[in-house]
């Protein structure tokens, strides 16, 4: 029995370490703007983005309508009698992003060299554009320099229909196939497209993150529907299943922290309004997941995430139409970790996690932007769920982390981003000082990150 318990504990620790590594990797934001959309629409990047990936109202509508709007020549054939139609872009919608970066933390990670130069940090290929008159895509495949391989990244393939009316008001509706809860969202206040837009993939990040805050990104596959009614009300829902890239099929669950049992519903509701120079969105989103770690049978862990968000954009005509943006979100996660508790991976079953994020950004035309963001994570203390480990662990089992991120971006061209970012931690994995029990302070993880991004 003792031996068995020991094995469970080892398994639990391995599972948690895997999740931590995953979280560090997933903490890196995936922020993208895609030139093939520009080639397809004949419009500059700035029509859809205040600064990529932040969407303007036009960008949101373009996404809502399935990435299909085009002004360019197509190979076409009209639908007649029993013949099908054809609307094919003459230009194949491919794009590339190339990122190279430098990361330095205040204190080097033990046994490693500080000042990490990555050339490239990542390079992405995109298939992004209209497939037909009603179907379009955002498909991303990314090369990661640490794993030295290409992997499937954010994907949103959608069917959309617009121009109809419901109760006398305009309605747009569609279907989305995607692999990241929230990637189909239209706003930059939610995690999938939220601040920070760029970030290091080697600097330590907090070990606790809500499921909807990127934890399931590219590890699930979902199909859902969405609608925008009267240009004010947005509703969306998607059902997800686990889809482990590189894993065995059918899924045995082994080695994966989250194996969705049944389906995991994601929901989203938002209301938007605008005047000539102001735009406001208020919304809610969430997800419910039943999952078994490293297995597909047996006891289950349950997670329910409730979240609220807002976004406000103010155009300032007196300042050459500069734009001030303010965004925020709060996520409450309640979890019942029966499986993890039984496996010795948690000291108790019931947990909660609170995540608050807010940022304010000033766009100097389309050439410069400055952003200041705050984040705060609090939750249930658990020495088994958040175990002690050098750098990535917590000595007191608390998930508390808080800090700020400052970002300056210069866009000499609309498709080149030169950014400098500083992330400061006031608290990291439960403490300000000696948070990992190995003498590392929260401020030791303060990070300077310099990025050059080329998009073409």
């Amino acid at each position, binding site marked *: 029995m003792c031996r068995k318990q020991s094995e469970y504990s080892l398994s639990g620790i391995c599972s948690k370490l895997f999740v931590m590594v995953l979280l560090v990797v997933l903490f890196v934001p995936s922020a993208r703007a895609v030139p093939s959309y520009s080639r397809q629409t004949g419009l500059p990047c700035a029509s859809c983005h205040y600064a990529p990936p932040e969407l303007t109202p*036009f960008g949101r509508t*373009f996404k809502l309508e399935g990435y299909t709007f085009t002004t360019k020549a197509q190979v076409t054939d009209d639908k007649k009698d029993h013949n099908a139609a054809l609307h094919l872009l003459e230009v194949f919608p491919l794009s590339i992003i190339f990122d190279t970066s430098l990361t330095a933390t205040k204190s080097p990670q033990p046994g490693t060299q500080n000042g990490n130069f990555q050339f490239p940090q990542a390079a992405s290929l995109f298939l992004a554009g209209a497939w037909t008159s009603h179907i379009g895509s955002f498909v991303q495949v990314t090369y990661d320099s640490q794993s030295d391989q290409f992997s499937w990244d954010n994907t949103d393939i959608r069917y959309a229909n617009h121009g109809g009316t419901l109760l006398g008001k305009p309605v747009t509706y569609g279907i989305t196939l995607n692999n990241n809860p929230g990637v189909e969202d239209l706003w930059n206040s939610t995690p999938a497209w939220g601040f920070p837009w760029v970030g290091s993939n080697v600097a330590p990040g907090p070990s606790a993150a809500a499921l909807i805050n990127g934890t399931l990104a590219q590890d699930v596959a979902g199909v859902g529907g969405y609608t925008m009614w009267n240009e004010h009300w947005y509703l969306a829902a998607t059902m997800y299943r686990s889809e482990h890239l590189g894993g065995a099929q059918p899924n045995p669950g082994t080695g994966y922290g989250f194996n969705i049992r049944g389906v995991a519903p994601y929901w989203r509701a938002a209301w938007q309004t605008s005047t000539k120079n102001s*735009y406001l969105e208020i919304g809610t989103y969430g997800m419910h997941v039943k999952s078994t770690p490293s297995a597909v049978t047996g006891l289950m862990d349950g997670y329910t995430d409730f979240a609220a968000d807002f976004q406000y954009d103010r155009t300032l005509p007196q300042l050459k139409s500069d734009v001030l943006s303010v965004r925020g979100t709060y996520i409450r996660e309640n979890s019942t970790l029966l499986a993890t508790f039984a496996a010795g991976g948690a000291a108790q079953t019931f947990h909660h996690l609170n995540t608050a994020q807010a940022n304010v950004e000033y766009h100097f035309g389309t050439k410069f932007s400055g952003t200041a963001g705050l984040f705060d994570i609090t939750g249930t203390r658990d020495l088994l769920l958040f175990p002690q480990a050098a750098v990535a662990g917590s000595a007191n089992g608390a998930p508390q982390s808080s800090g700020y991120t400052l970002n300056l971006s210069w866009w000499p061209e609309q498709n080149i981003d030169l950014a400098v970012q500083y992330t400061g931690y006031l608290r990291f994995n439960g403490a300000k000082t000696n948070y990992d029990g190995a003498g590392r302070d929260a401020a030791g993880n303060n990070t300077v990150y310099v990025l050059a991004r080329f998009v073409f």
Partner: protein
Amino acid sequence: MRDLAVRLIATSILCSLILPAALQAQSDAAKTFKANCVLCHSADGSGDSATGKAMHAKDLRSDEVQKQSDAALAEAITKGKGKMPAFGAKIHPEDVNKLVAYIRDLANKK
């Protein structure tokens, strides 16, 4: 009386030939408008959506637009104007003319 009957029949035949063509033209133009213009100018041409406001889309029913000649409107559609992209590569000149007529109709519906 006979002349009147002939005229009525001739008029009916003419109408039956012209009206469907006119309705068809309208329908085609409506489709073109929906696919290409609604995103910024709204279904009623007002441009009174968040997108339209952000792009400073013109109210197609306004005097500023309506007082322009058909040729000027067609050129704006084909070659683009201000923030509006050029649609000349996508929309056939014949459809551009139908679109101009559709835009004229929007003002009448205001």
